[in-house]
């Protein structure tokens, strides 16, 4: 299902059940992110603790696996570990990512949101933050995607904490407009 441009009514138009379903029911479902026919919205969590090598920018989910807290409209592509705008689901999205790091005192920690061409947002801190978050708005065409990436320079492997808790490592996206 997809968003339908609202009909402009003219005098003499006959109001049909198809009109009501397309312009009232379906567009309302879309705007409410209904589990049936709703606009895409997903929240993922890293299923298990996962190491990232030092000084290596890494797509989260390529090490460790994203699991779904929920996925409305098929936004999560579990093969590519991306949030991908489905057919008919192009538009403006709000994305966010968070990494809960194993403690280490040295080097930088970095997370970003990346659409395959442009780094859309970045948080980079020196000195071992425990939790890092970043949020951005981005326009995606159908098939366009966003990934969450992480990097660190502690000098060795460093763990991202996983599990079904909202305060651990997470990645989410929600359609917010045409």
């Amino acid at each position, binding site marked *: 299902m997809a968003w339908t441009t609202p009909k402009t009514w003219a005098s003499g138009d006959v*109001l*049909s*059940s198809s009109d*009501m*379903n397309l312009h*009232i*029911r*379906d567009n*309302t*479902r879309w*705007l*409410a*992110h*209904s*589990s049936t026919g*709703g606009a895409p*919205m997903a*929240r993922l969590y890293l299923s298990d603790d996962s190491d990232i090598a030092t000084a290596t920018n890494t797509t989260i989910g390529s090490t460790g696996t994203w699991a779904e807290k*929920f996925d*409305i409209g098929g936004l999560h592509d579990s093969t590519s570990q991306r949030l991908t705008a489905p057919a008919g689901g192009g538009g403006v999205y*709000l994305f*966010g990512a*968070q990494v809960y790091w194993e*403690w280490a005192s040295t080097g930088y920690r970095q997370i970003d949101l990346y659409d395959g061409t442009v780094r859309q947002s970045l948080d980079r801190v020196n*000195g*071992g*933050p*425990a*939790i890092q*978050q*970043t*949020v951005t708005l981005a326009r995606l065409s159908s098939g366009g995607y966003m990934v969450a990436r992480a990097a660190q320079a502690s000098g060795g492997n460093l763990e991202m904490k996983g599990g079904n*808790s*909202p*305060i651990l490592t*997470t990645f*989410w996206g*929600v359609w917010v407009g045409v």
Partner: protein
Amino acid sequence: MTWYTPKTWTSGDLLTATDMNRNNRSNLYHLSAQKPRCHLLSQVPTAVETEAWTEVLFTGASVDTGGMFDAAADNTMIAIKEAGVFMVGGQAWWQNAGATPANTSRSVKVQRNRTNPIARDHQPRLQTAGVQQRQVVRPMLWPLSVNDAITLEVWQNSGTTLNIRPFDFTDYGPNLWVLWVGEEI
């Protein structure tokens, strides 16, 4: 205004005023002017003892649909009136810790029903001696239920009591907010 599961129409259905009020008027209101949302501010300090999670006190709401904040009943919480997936966030502004040890930790989290954290920020080295620090819990998506209590809790280990600074109309203060973004899952 109440959210109604959108009706599926069949050929021959009579279009009634009730249908239009529920499926068009009420749902459009719910998705726009009356979308459940609440944003709390505070004009009083909250004292935070060292190594003790503490709920931030709020004095008012800049945005509140449906009476989600009732300071007389409980000035620490947003009460969810309608189930759904919400975006939640918050912020705290720490008092200058003065001569207390630098590099001590500060933490802030949004709690559901006072036991389950929805979002959290923890900075082991946030505090530099002599500097006030703001801490933001960035937006998170999470499903909430009717009567859920949403609170903002803070923690620090400076070794002494620190205040969360109030909003003073010239700079930022603590805030806590929720925004309905979708139907109950």
